[in-house]
């Protein structure tokens, strides 16, 4: 099943980003992009971003993807979109936005299964099934939660009255929210970036803002996000992850990296949904999505009724 939606603005930004990427720093040379934009029908490529060795003996594996199409792609959870072993299935998205999206979800392998591999299988339309393994072992894919050289760490995110969490596995809200179709549901997360940076470095003379982005993660219908008056959307262009990730419209800046973010969500169809909230500090010179630091996910389940 494929799902298309108007993406003119996203395409334009993606093309701009691509041009920015292929043009060298030497303005005197003329870039010649090799490939025309994708016309659709391309598979979603699954990426195993890396693995974290946890103190309790478990292993957390971070997964992301690259949708090479210019349209969003829907792949419902099930035979064509599954994690094996099935015990660990369920946190992967069913909607794939255009471009590269690192660390969209994570799977934690319990200590009792530490030596096992998890596999993410995904089959887009008529394309062949693609799959990647995740496990502890390869040094090249080992991740950690230590401060980066300029102090960036995974920021903290939480839902009201819930525990704080961080990293790609982040937190899942303890409570499922309920709302009816087309009604407004205000979602709120608390955020704090505990990164300690050197203020004598001219890049950090002023505290950096962090960013919250709201995404539909799972669910049968469309989810629309409109800004909440307390936290207006960012309207400036965004070239996150070096232009490989088209800008999401539902972006909120958190001044000085501390404070709540709110958004108003509406749902087009009844059913069970999951919203993903990504909090990142990619304004820092030592933090970027493709460098695998530093952001945190939070997931809110929503039951939508008629």
């Amino acid at each position, binding site marked *: 099943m494929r799902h298309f939606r108007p993406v003119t603005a996203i395409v334009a930004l993606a093309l701009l980003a691509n041009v920015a990427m292929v043009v060298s720093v030497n303005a*005197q040379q003329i870039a*010649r*992009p090799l*490939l025309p934009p994708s016309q659709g029908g391309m598979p979603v490529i699954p990426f195993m971003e890396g693995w974290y060795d946890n103190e309790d003996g478990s292993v957390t594996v971070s997964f992301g993807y690259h949708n090479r199409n210019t349209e969003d792609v829907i792949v419902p959870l099930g035979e064509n979109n599954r994690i094996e072993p099935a015990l660990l299935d369920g946190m992967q998205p069913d909607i794939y936005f255009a471009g590269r999206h690192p660390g969209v979800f994570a799977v934690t392998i319990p200590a009792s299964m530490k030596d096992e591999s998890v596999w993410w299988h995904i089959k887009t339309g008529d394309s062949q099934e693609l799959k*990647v393994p995740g496990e502890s072992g390869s*040094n090249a*894919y080992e991740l950690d939660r230590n401060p980066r050289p300029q102090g960036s760490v995974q920021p903290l995110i939480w839902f009201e009255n819930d525990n704080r969490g961080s990293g790609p596995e982040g937190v899942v809200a303890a409570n499922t929210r309920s709302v009816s179709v087309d009604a407004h549901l205000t979602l709120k997360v608390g955020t704090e970036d505990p990164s300690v940076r050197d203020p004598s470095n*001219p890049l950090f003379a002023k505290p950096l803002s962090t960013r919250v982005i709201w995404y539909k993660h799972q669910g049968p219908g469309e989810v629309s996000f409109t800004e909440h008056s307390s936290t207006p959307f960012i309207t400036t262009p965004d070239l996150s992850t070096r232009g490989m990730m088209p800008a999401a419209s539902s972006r909120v800046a958190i001044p000085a990296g501390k404070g709540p973010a709110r958004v108003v969500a509406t749902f087009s169809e009844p059913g069970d949904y999951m919203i993903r909230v990504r909090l990142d500090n990619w304004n820092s010179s*030592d933090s970027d999505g493709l*460098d695998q630091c530093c952001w945190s996910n939070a997931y809110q389940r929503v039951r939508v009724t008629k």
Partner: protein
Amino acid sequence: MNILQKWNECSPLRFGIVIFTLFGFQAQTAIAADFEGIAEEVTYASHVARIINENCVVCHREGGIGPMQLGSYDHVRPWAPLIQLKVANREMPPYAYDHDIGNQNLQADWRLSQEDIDIVVAWVNQGALLGNLEELPPPPTLRNINEWNFADQFGQPDIMISSNPIDIPANGNDLWDKHFIESGITEDRCIRALQVKPRGDAKTVVHHANTYFAEIKEDGSVDRKPVTEYAMGKWGEVVPEGVCRTAFADSLIQWDIHMYPGGLGGTAPNAAVKDNIVDLGIWLHPAGYKAKITQDLATYQLDQGGLFIPPHGTAMTQGFHSFDHPVRIDSFQPHGHLRMNAASLEIFYPETGRTELISMISNWSATWHHSHLYEPDSAPLLPIGAVLVTKQWYDNTANNPNNPDPRQWVGWGQRTADEMSHSWIAISHLDNDTYQELAEQRENNKQSELGSGD
């Protein structure tokens, strides 16, 4: 231990040891059959010591980055079969650049001559004998292992800038350290040579260390131009005579250092490194030095956005660049990571439809990023409209000894486990008159050579 846990110990060199252990006899037999040209007795003392002293000992010595010492016969003899294999296959010295095609006029070319290769092969085939001690050449005069590579040529650098120290853990995610240091440069000057030098164990954990002349604007954005690029194994850069590459006055130096915890290659410490520091040395021309040709170093991108290497698969990228004025290509340094295994540089001439292969590197490795410096009198000259065509190849199969996990999809990213696809190319920018002058000079040289019968 899981074999994937040991991947970074599988440097090309160690891989070679394994291969030799498994197939050494067959390989030696094959090499013996291929190199039967030297009938005279070849000994370490009479022939081989000179070759090894001049080409190997600089790294293969106590404290050097080579995993074994090769400073004496006793050191060399146990490794003779492996040395033969590596030398015959042109894997050592580690300067991957195809020898039978494209521009062969390179400065700082580490490759052995075919004659020296034949001598080493014959020596091992004859039993790797010591020979007459009286024929031994004097031991090599080795400069301090921490000395600058251009010290003999240019003395000490005029400017040395060290990065801030940083501790690198034994394992974990790649790290990027970006910070600023005052350059101390008070007037624009022309650069003669550059070297970036990680200290001690930093050599195996510093994946790259780029430097930029930087200015921080009021809004916090950074305006920057490359000083030089360093990636693992790089020797340095020399700017041709008559060319000015500017060291900009009153600028900061921005360090952009990518570190790989645990290290990469045969001498990787697989341990924490305390106080990792990288030094930048800049040799300047005298104040007042004038040159009508300007040079800059820049990255030339291939199709990085389209770089997707499937599990157990291969991929290739291409990049195309042209200029609105004539240029000369002074150096070429392809960049990639663990899956990249080959690169080339071509020039396409639209007026004739002809494509000229300039450089081919069929056995590229991420542990040796050489900047191939073309001799100025034969460096490629590009008229307006000519197109630089860069190509890079990737191998994500188990056949690639550097591959950390052939089951993964690999795309663009800065991490060592991800891939990149660009080249650092130093370009001399020419006006039409200078281009004509250089082209005529070369034509005259060619006619002279033909006339002299050389």
